[in-house]
């Protein structure tokens, strides 16, 4: 009698869900061990994190504020993946969206009810503008969007630093390295959580609907999975690449606008909190599924929130980053292991 592992071509969904839960648990356990070894009391820390996050409505509201941009940046990356493109530039498009929304909010004199919709449009346009060149380069010249979107991040980040500390610097207070306060704010939805939160969830649901339940979404999925098959069936792959990548940029830009008008209210360097890069993790955790992005964003939000709480307990940010990395690492292992099953051999072959 012996036992052996056997690999299956597809993992059953129940098992892969269990593998993910196990992976997250294993990552947290390992982190707890390391914390215990360095003299902290992991149980007390965990209790503190739990209480501060889920024990009060304040904690949940904080979580909601973190989850909102993560849903959108995760969705931005996941959408691009549908057509087979890696949008590493959600970070830059986030900045570009916040920048464009600020420009409108500070300098366009229009009646107040028009301002928020206009800022949202400007945010989306900013995100689209930021991904336009990588999109065209990919669609017409086959240039890898991975590199181009990534590099444009630095341009956007530096541009925002420049305007926030230079031409648009708030001269009145002069204390902040930020622009003046944008006078238009996203209305509150629940506590301090603004309407961006439900809108982001709706957007994720809408994207899932479009991708899975429309012929356009079908063409995008085929084109993303195998461009030659799409060409074979006469689908306009190039047009879809352009449309989907621009949509991806628009969603990331909208995230920037929400963050500005809902949470920060002033354009400043570092406004993105790395949400654009974290969106890549969210999309990977969600395996490119728009619905999965919701769960991935909540998980990432909890980790970020825990990080903020742990910092008040004297842990530094690298610890939190390390835990994030551990979770991703273990999830990848769990996903692979979900393909295996244990079989019993009737005869020892040796």
């Amino acid at each position, binding site marked *: 009698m012996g036992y*052996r592992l*056997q690999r*299956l*071509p*597809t993992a059953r969904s129940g098992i892969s869900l269990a593998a993910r839960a196990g992976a997250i648990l294993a990552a947290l356990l390992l982190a707890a061990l390391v914390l215990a070894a360095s003299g902290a009391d992991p149980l007390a820390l965990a209790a503190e994190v739990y209480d501060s996050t889920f024990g009060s409505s304040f904690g949940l509201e904080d979580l909601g504020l973190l989850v909102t941009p993560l849903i959108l940046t995760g969705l931005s990356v996941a959408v691009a993946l549908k057509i087979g493109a890696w949008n590493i530039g959600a970070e830059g498009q986030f900045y570009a969206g916040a920048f464009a929304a600020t420009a409108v909010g500070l300098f366009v004199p229009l009646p107040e009810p028009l301002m928020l919709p206009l800022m949202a449009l400007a945010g989306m346009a900013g995100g689209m503008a930021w991904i336009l060149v990588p999109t065209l380069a990919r669609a017409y010249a086959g240039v890898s969007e991975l590199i181009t979107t990534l590099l444009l991040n630095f341009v956007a980040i530096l541009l925002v630093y420049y305007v926030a500390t230079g031409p648009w610097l708030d001269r009145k207070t002069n204390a902040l390295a930020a622009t003046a306060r944008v006078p238009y704010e996203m209305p509150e939805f629940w506590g301090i959580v603004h309407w961006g939160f439900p809108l982001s969830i709706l957007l994720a649901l809408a994207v899932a609907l479009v991708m*899975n*339940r*429309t*012929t*356009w*979404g*079908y*063409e995008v*999925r*085929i084109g993303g*999975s*195998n461009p*030659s*098959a*799409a*060409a*074979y*069936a*006469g*689908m306009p792959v190039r047009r879809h690449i352009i449309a989907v990548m621009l949509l991806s940029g628009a969603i990331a830009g909208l995230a920037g606008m929400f963050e500005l008008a809902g949470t920060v209210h002033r354009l400043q360097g570092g406004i993105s909190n790395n949400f654009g890069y974290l969106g890549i993790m969210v999309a990977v955790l969600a395996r490119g599924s728009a619905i999965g992005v919701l769960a991935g964003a909540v998980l990432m939000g909890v980790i970020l929130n825990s990080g903020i709480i742990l910092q008040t307990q004297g842990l530094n940010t690298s610890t939190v980053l390390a835990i994030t990395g551990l979770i991703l690492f273990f999830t990848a292992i769990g996903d692979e292991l979900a393909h295996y*099953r244990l*079989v019993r*051999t*009737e*005869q020892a*072959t*040796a």
Partner: protein
Amino acid sequence: MDAMPQIPARPAAGPGAPPLVLLRGIAKYFPGVVANQDVDLEVRPGEIHALLGENGAGKSTLMNILTGIYQPDAGEIIIEGYGKSFASPVEAIAAGIGMVHQHFKLVQAFTVAENIHLGWAETPRRIRAAALEARTAELADKFNLAVRPGARVGELSTGEQQRVEILRVLARQAKVLILDEPTAVLTPSEARELFRALRTFAAGGNAVIFISHKLDEVLEISDRVSVLRGGRKVTTLPTAECSEASLARLMVGHEIVLSDLRGRGPDAAPVSAEPVLRLSGVSLADELGTPLLSDISLEVRAGEILGIAGVAGNGQKELSQVLTGIRAPSAGAIELGGAPVLRAGAEAFARFGVGHIPEDRLHSGLAPALSVADNAVIREYKRPPVSRGPWYRPGAAAALARSIAGTAEVSVPDFSMPIRNLSGGNQQRLVARREMRIAHKVLVAAYPSRGLDVGAINTMMRYFVELRDAGAGVILISEELEELLNLSDRIAVLFHGRLMGTIPADKADVEQIGLMMGGQRLAAPARVLEEA
């Protein structure tokens, strides 16, 4: 075969010598599939043992077990009288069992000598390239396999690459050489050369296991044949007692007749007077201006099968792309149903009723990572019931997929699983059935039988006859002359992107087509005959 002084001296096996390989009661199960069950196989020294079976009969699984890629769920592997268990191919080759796979596992950027010595315990730790090449030349000489040690593998022809693979296995002192469909990639003369090398190798007291589903080859090369069907071994016979018909019967379980399918039943649609698809003076060039197709004029009528013969790589792929609207010609005109096509486009062609079985289905006809259902509706997703207006209906897509799988006689356990999980033969059947649904006017089939076994090929041929009799024009691009002669009403020959002429199949002889495949234009009288 007389004395072979260069063969490694190994005593010729006497009658009492144990078999080189003995498999007993081998079983291998995959989820929902019995890949092998109760398989016994004996391979004797000095023999070439053919392993014959349809796609999915369990040949590859069995050989993967023998070479340590898989471990059996039951049964024993006995090598020269000793029970063994291989945890990896490295252990199998150490025991003298090496395999040359259908897809070569060579490093393209390395030289032949480097590839031979890669990952080999006997390779010296530090050695100059010249010495490495000298060693390789010595090995090549010893095993009588002509290779150029200094050449980069990427620059070699497929036949030469195969020789490198074989030499790599033999250099590791293999006593049993397993070849998976070795001639699929070879020209006839390369195949003859390979056969000679195999006989020499076997004559030295070694053995060859030859996996194939080409019956004529098996009859030509092997000493004994083992037939697998549905994961079990049907029988092992001396080749001398077999014929193509008897082997085919054993393989599929019933008699197969590959023969004249040109005859029409009383209900068959007549051949139309007007062509349903016509190319006049069509040329195609790549971005650099290199001509791929030159001045091609051909027509196919409703209710007939037009065969396109030619050695692969003479413009077949490009021609099928032009015929189905995927690529627009750079010169010349296309007519569909008598009307000129002004703007080419695969979608417009499909809407007119042109179906297309592409030559590499997984790479151009399917989205491997998407579900069986999504792949089944790639031609009909824009029409009800699969969609209503802009809305795509996954339920209706799955229902259509189920019906296509039904007519294709493919059992799919789960229509939401990625289509790459299906076997190549099953993918091909699904694609064929999917395309036949839209091919009301024309079906362009490129190498439809490639990689299929006799049973599946016959099914495929019946599909084409069915379609022809229903009044569609079929363009069959193939390199199997027998298949073309059996099916086609007319045969056109493609050479270097040009048509060498078109001849009626009943007036054609293999010899003449062979000359045309080699670049000789059809002589004038025959052309008159065609137009008469």
